[in-house]
């Protein structure tokens, strides 16, 4: 091949690769365009504060939205302390022995187990064996187990980013290991930990399959008012409306998606803001 031919092939290859990337982004654009076109007309305050109805034009998402918020807050309350504690153990205490290695491999594998399997786990353990029923508590416990690997992995990364000199300085002043972790390491790692937590939660809030499998309801016309009450969440409500044949309900589903995406974008914006703050702090 002549030099000019090789250069031409190279340029063509580069264009094709960029084109493929742009096609993927165009798909994202088409998705957003489609949902906005279908749903924007249904989006209103009445839709957000309304209850489900057999008539599409009257139906709202209030119970589902409340359920989602309730479930996510509870998921965070379970996953944050357990996940951070596990990460501290693995990062600060864990010796390079068989047990630590096994736990690490196990966490990596768990993070790739299909979410629907967690639903079966929740159904078997929380709903049946522990007798929680198909409640908010059982749903949040299921999602907490699902979120745990992500929280642990991101917390470990945040702990690793804390400079060793800070630990050594603390030890030099006579602090114990736990005092060092609690008073020095954790405060510095907090923004990083919270960023990871929010990203894990923003995945959990969009989860549908594990909660359906675990037994969340699909038609709820009341608000969850205790840990033991039955519930539904926004993604299940969207699924329910999408699965109906009538076009009016599809518009409701699209409007529900818009609310869900707005929620997700807000959470991600907070995560990015925290990460920026964090990077500036470490750079100091």
């Amino acid at each position, binding site marked *: 091949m002549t030099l000019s031919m*090789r250069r031409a*092939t*190279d340029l063509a*290859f*580069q264009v094709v*690769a960029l084109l*493929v*990337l742009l096609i*993927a982004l165009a798909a*994202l654009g*088409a*998705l957003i365009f489609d*949902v906005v076109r279908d749903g924007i007309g249904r989006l209103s305050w009445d839709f957000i504060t309304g209850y489900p109805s057999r008539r599409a034009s009257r139906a709202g998402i209030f119970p589902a939205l409340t359920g989602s918020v309730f479930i996510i807050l509870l998921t965070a309350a379970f996953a944050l302390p*357990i996940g951070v*504690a*596990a990460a*501290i*153990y693995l990062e600060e*205490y*864990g010796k390079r022995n068989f047990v630590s290695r096994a736990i690490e491999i196990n*966490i*990596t*594998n*768990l993070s*790739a*187990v*299909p*979410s*629907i*399997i*967690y*639903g*079966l*786990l929740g159904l*078997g353990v929380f709903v*049946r064996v522990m007798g929680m029923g198909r409640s908010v508590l059982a749903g949040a416990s299921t999602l907490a187990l699902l979120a*745990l*690997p992500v929280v642990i992995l991101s917390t470990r990364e945040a702990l690793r980013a804390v400079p060793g000199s800070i630990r050594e300085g603390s030890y030099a002043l006579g602090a*114990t290991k*736990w*005092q060092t972790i609690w008073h020095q390491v954790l405060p510095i790692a907090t923004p990083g930990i919270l960023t990871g937590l929010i990203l894990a939660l*923003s995945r959990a*809030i*969009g*989860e*549908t*399959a594990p909660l*359906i*499998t675990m*037994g969340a309801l*699909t038609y709820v016309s009341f608000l969850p008012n205790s840990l033991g009450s039955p519930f539904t969440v926004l*993604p299940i409500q*969207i*699924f329910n409306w*999408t*699965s109906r044949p009538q076009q009016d309900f*599809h518009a409701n589903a699209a409007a529900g*998606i818009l609310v*869900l995406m707005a929620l*997700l974008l807000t959470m991600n914006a907070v995560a990015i803001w925290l990460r920026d703050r964090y990077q500036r702090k470490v750079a100091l």
Partner: protein
Amino acid sequence: MRRFEPLIERGLFLCALVSVGTTVGIIAVLAVDTVAFLREVPITEFLFGTEWTPLFSTPSFGVLPLVAGTALVSMIAMLVALPMGLLSSIYLSEYANSHVRRILKPVLELLAGVPTVVYGYFALLFVTPLLQQVIPTLGGFNALGPGIVMGIMILPLVSSLSEDAMRAVPNGLREGSYALGATKMQTSLRVVVPAAFSGITAAFILAISRAVGETMIVAIAAGQQPRLTLNPLVQIETMTAYIVQVSLGDTPQGTIEYRTIFAVGMLLFIGTFGLNLVSAWLRQRYREEYS
């Protein structure tokens, strides 16, 4: 204070054990009902039977149609995600300057953050109608639309893991190749990609595992008819969609229909867990190669 330190360590260790407990719990929960299921249905009928009608009055429990449905959709998704993901990662790792990469990468990763139920909506109500204009015989529920959408969803995973693997390749290899007069494309395809091969394979395998376990896209857009077919134009049912279908109904606990979802779940778990293990092992290998 010092007296409590060992106690604290033990407490932290218990929290770390929760993850092991999760794995044990998954296996136990799936095993209990799978064993009960296999007591009523011979394992050969379950694994090799070609008809899946557990909810009929004369039920048969051959899981192959569900496996075929899962394989078909995953295959379509891989045909989209693997080549597109690899090309994207080559572009991001070898061609794009840091400025372009800093814009393109987060946008691409947005695709991975979209909830799967939203992709289901997109597959059923946008992609399938669009495809029907080209292929008039395409059913309202089919494997093709959700397969393509699933491929787009998985693309960022393939792209970002492959990119990580390619960036781990030492620059000396690239420079050697340029010094021999190779172009960027020749260097990418004949030096960087082969050098990052185990990492890229790890990404591919993880992508397959993700496709096999993906639920909502197929539950919404692929249908509920278990069928032993490779025809992407008709309604099918995947393993995951079947579990959702039964979960939505009122199947009483303890019946054989109820146990089927655990047996199918067990099969799904074994399959994806095996893929994940292979993928983790390959990733470990490329880390060792270049560190």
